[in-house]
């Protein structure tokens, strides 16, 4: 297994957010984490990379327990994270944003260069010196993914990559994610949009009120319309 999460519990202050979350991601797999707004998708991702201070449980990445490590070490081990809010450095240019994400090569992961990323996201190549703050939402979404890929991750946590994007950009996003998969990057993608998830994912988990309530292949999910209708808004 590429990534195994077991008994993950997280708190924000007195509020208990995640309850015994557990899921697995295989080598080269794309796994969708589906759920409504506020179900706990983003908190799950933030907990995995250590951005939530109060958490417990086991997070095995490439066979090693990373749950005690600080954020930057988890990321340097090859676990990339793309936040939902994109969090582009607005004062920095596209090139400089990519520079911040740059890490050294990794033997078990594809190596991304600026040129390769500009081929993947042609829009970015046309605005190398534009500050991040003067880009559209879709361009920022591309930049935030490209920035994480500069760290040559072997697995990427993609938090709601289709949120708020126009259909045309969503198509580009699907292509980009499939290219990443073809290159050998394992991906966990959180989504509310089942149609988008279906286009890219091998398997899916459904999260509801901080608990995993379904796990299986996309075909298995389609066979259970009751679960789909109960936990996902379409």
């Amino acid at each position, binding site marked *: 297994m590429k990534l195994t999460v077991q008994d993950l519990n997280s708190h924000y202050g007195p509020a208990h957010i995640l309850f015994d979350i557990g899921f697995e991601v295989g080598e080269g797999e794309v796994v969708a984490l589906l759920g409504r707004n506020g179900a706990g998708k983003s908190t799950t991702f933030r907990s995995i*990379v250590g*951005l939530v201070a109060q958490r417990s449980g086991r997070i095995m990445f490439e066979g090693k327990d990373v749950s005690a490590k*600080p*954020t*930057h*070490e988890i*990321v*340097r081990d090859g676990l990339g*994270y793309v*936040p939902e809010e994109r*969090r582009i*450095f*607005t*004062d*920095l240019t596209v090139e*400089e*944003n990519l*520079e*911040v*994400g*740059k*890490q050294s090569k990794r033997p078990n992961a594809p190596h991304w260069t600026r040129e390769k990323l500009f081929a993947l996201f042609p829009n970015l190549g046309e605005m190398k010196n534009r500050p991040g703050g003067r880009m559209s939402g879709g361009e920022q979404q591309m930049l935030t993914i490209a*920035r*994480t890929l500069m*760290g040559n991750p072997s697995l990427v946590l993609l938090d709601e990559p289709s949120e708020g994007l126009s259909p045309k950009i969503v198509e580009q996003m699907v292509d980009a994610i499939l290219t990443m998969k073809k290159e050998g990057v394992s991906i966990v993608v959180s989504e509310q949009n089942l149609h988008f998830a279906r286009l890219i994912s091998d398997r899916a988990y459904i999260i509801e009120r901080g608990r995993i309530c379904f796990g299986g292949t996309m075909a298995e999910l389609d066979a259970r319309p009751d679960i789909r209708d109960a936990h996902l808004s379409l």
Partner: protein
Amino acid sequence: MAFYVVQFLTGLASAASLFLVASGLSIIFGVTRIVNFAHGAFYMIGAYIAFTLTERLSGAFGFWGSIVLAALAVALIGVLVEMVLLRRIYHAPELFQLLATFGLTLMVEDLVVLVWGPDDLVGRRAPGFKGAIDFFGQNIPSYDLFLIVLGPVVLGILWLLFQRTRWGVLVRAATQDRDMVAALGVNQKWLFTSVFAVGVFLAALGGALQIPRDAVHHAMDLRIIVEVFVVVVIGGLGSIVGAFVAAVLVSELNAFGILIFPKISIILVFLVMAVVLIVRPWGLFGKPEAAARKTPGLTVNPWRPLTSNERLASLAALVIAATLPLFAGNYALTVGSEIAIFVIFAVSLHFLMSVGGLASFGHAAYFGLGAYGIAFLAKMAGLPMIVCLLLGPLLGCMGAAVFGFFAVQLSGVYFAMLTLAFAQIVWSIAFQWVSVTGGDNGILGVWPEKWAASPSHFYWLALGVAALVTIVLRVMVFSPFGYALRATRDSLLRTEAIGINAKRIQWTAFVIAGTTAGIGGALFAYLKGSVFPDNLGISLSVDALVMVLLGGVETVSGAVIGAIVYKALNIWLVSQTDLSKLVLGGFIVLIVVVFPKGIVGMLEMLAQRRRKSSPPGSPLLAKPIESAE
């Protein structure tokens, strides 16, 4: 004409050091969000170490090598400070960070006297820049020309560093979003440490470069830090270009201000700062900061008024305190009066800081203004004591009304820096305007009238006023005005969204706190029989902050307890040691790092723990609302 050109060039030369120190402060703030009060201390150590090294090492290389070596050595000290102290408080509220670095400053002030002695040290002239250049009959020191060139050169180097290196890109990214930088695999710890080292290096370099121009002395830290605060408030915190422009502006205003108002040249700088704050509250080159942590404490507990039992207990404590003259001697009564006066002072700051969320670092200004008010009325106008006591604090009230108006335009660290700068301006006026204030000699012979002259009578007067002030402010905390004020503290935007004029509420609170402090100062003038500029000095402002912090910044009654414990401790300490600043500074750092909740906060925590462990029942049903007394 030539004279004005020379004056202009002198201003430019002074700007160089100011720019170095201010840019260091800005860089550190940008990434760590800490306003490093100790920056002036690093500047001072830089000057002292450079002095020692230039005395030992000879020749041109020895001199310039010493300057750089001194800056590097201080940067190393900075790294140690960052790793040992600051790493523990990065997530603490900004008030704690300001106080911890201020504590450090106090310690350094005593340490340099221990190492280098109290006398001014005059350093060597710079080799190659010893002479002066003749400019139409006016002399320009060639070292000044060197500094004039150095400023823009350093600005250029910093620009290249931040625009052209990976380190610079990372620093700029971290300035905007530290967590995201970590989420991209960058080790924040070392980034922070390196940024701190660079900032401290710049400060120390600024200090080291001063030795051919100025004597090295142990008060140069406060002088520079106040100027630096003014510079970053004008230029915009976090902007290096802003630091440069504002450093030039402030230095020129100083250079020409002396020609216009020789006695109170600082007025001109103040006026410019006021205009900038009205037009661009975040400085010429700064950006509006998203409000970070508004609460002064670590957690927020709902507040509640005292229960009737607690009221009786407080009353009993007051009655017991009132019996002191029955068995205590005159010295104890004088100490008691002083403590009562400082209760008034601490309670007034608590009202502004804990209730209003506005941590003032210059609260002594209003205390001192109250004291000067008494001195003017009693000595010059010859009014009776009761009238003086009623009118004297009005000077504090007026000062608070003027400065408060500008100060509440800002919040957080800007507010702290601005209040400190204002207090320092008032201090300078009291110090320099000798014909009115007596300058350093103060105003003597301000004695109470017969009915209040005996120690016991004065003690009762002070105790009564302290009790009255405490009760009035407490009632205000639980009045509609108090609710509105606490609302502005907890969320400024939401307060305005429900139709409260937040700035006016804060301004009112500022004036109330300033007037109350003025009452304390008025009594203090009568207690001491004299008024000095120190009555509005920085150390008194810090005393007030420490009293509130020691008692517990999150509590309602902490200020009273904090004032009593701290003042008693302080009076005892001063009688025991010459190194009171060192001990006090260490004490402040210790509270911030180890006991951030203060005395009352700790007692409350213990009480809560006891309550939690005893009651049975389901934790789901019983959700006790914890409250602070």
